[in-house]
């Protein structure tokens, strides 16, 4: 009778290594999905002061979207692709010459300086949401373009990148404190004044 001898066991010593290798691979490659979007602040219900604030017409950049998605910018029909440029030109127009870093044309009929410039966005009730988002995106883009330019000049990096790093909770607090002042400074150079009035009914 032949001796019963089982086949030798497969050496499983390296199995753990393979498992860890796979684990690390998946850990590195999977990203937990985070939502992203356009951050906006709504105006408070009651104005903080009783008396009406008087804003000169030339400091307001009106953008109207009708129900067909057409744009009326400062009473002229405009293509959506030109909006960013028009908004940028308006913001850094610098009519009163108080803004040293602006490169605007100093057109007396346009905004005095970036801190006074207000963009007013109005839309119809039947405007499509996607059109509205595109317009919002272009207006925010105009602000970001200007801020990026100044940030490049002062700190040799993009404002949007600095802000994202500042808002990221994983950034060490020492770097965050340092960024806070820089971000604040750029924001004050071109404060975002985007007013969204209630939609017109007709």
């Amino acid at each position, binding site marked *: 009778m032949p001796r019963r001898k089982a086949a030798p066991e497969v050496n499983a010593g390296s199995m753990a290594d393979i498992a860890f290798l796979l684990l690390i691979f998946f850990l590195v490659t999977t990203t937990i999905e985070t939502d992203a979007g356009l951050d906006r602040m709504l105006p408070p219900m009651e104005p903080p002061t009783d008396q009406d604030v008087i804003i000169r017409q030339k400091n307001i950049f009106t953008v109207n979207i009708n129900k067909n*998605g057409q744009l009326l910018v400062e009473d002229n029909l405009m293509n959506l692709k030109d909006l960013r440029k028009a908004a940028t030109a308006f913001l850094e127009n610098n009519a009163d010459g108080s803004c040293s870093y602006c490169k605007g044309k100093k057109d007396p009929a346009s905004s005095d300086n970036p801190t006074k410039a207000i963009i007013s966005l109005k839309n119809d009730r*039947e405007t499509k949401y996607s059109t509205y988002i595109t317009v919002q995106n272009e207006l925010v883009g105009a602000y970001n373009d200007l801020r990026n330019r100044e940030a490049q000049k002062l700190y040799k990096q993009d404002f949007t990148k600095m802000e994202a790093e500042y808002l990221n909770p994983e950034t060490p607090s020492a770097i965050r404190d340092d960024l806070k002042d820089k971000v604040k400074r750029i924001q004050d150079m071109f404060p975002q004044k985007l007013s969204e009035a209630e939609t017109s009914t007709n």
Partner: protein
Amino acid sequence: MAKFTKKKDGDLPAVSTASLPDIVFMLLFFFMTVTTMKDSSLMVENTLPNATEIKKLEKKDRVIYIYVGKPTQEYQKVFGSEPKIQLNDKFANVDEVGTFILAERAKKPQELQNVLTTALKVDKNANMGLIADIKQELRKVNALKVNYTTYEGDAFNNLQ
């Protein structure tokens, strides 16, 4: 010759299960990291528009979601095909948004109640009228920080 024959009637050797725990742990870790808790299933169509100037919504515990869009196929018979608001797991009217925000805000810890963001996940084909009504409701309950959630991409793709 005997060497070759004796294998024949031998039992199958047991497969080593020593590494099974490793594999199980690996799977466990994998699923632990990729799973995100989803608290409501979508009942509306939700194709978000594209935008480039976006900011990430950090800290999920500080976000309240509002979904807007056309009801999906299975709900269209009951709710029609006009865009509706979805709060948590049910359809709602505009006037319920305020109470919903207040209820959600009350559920959060005290220190987070002032820093909440409302994420509006709106289908690109919705009309602004409904959004304007929601915005008005949000202003009434002083939930002023909103985020129009979008995909990252060229904003001009929205217009096609």
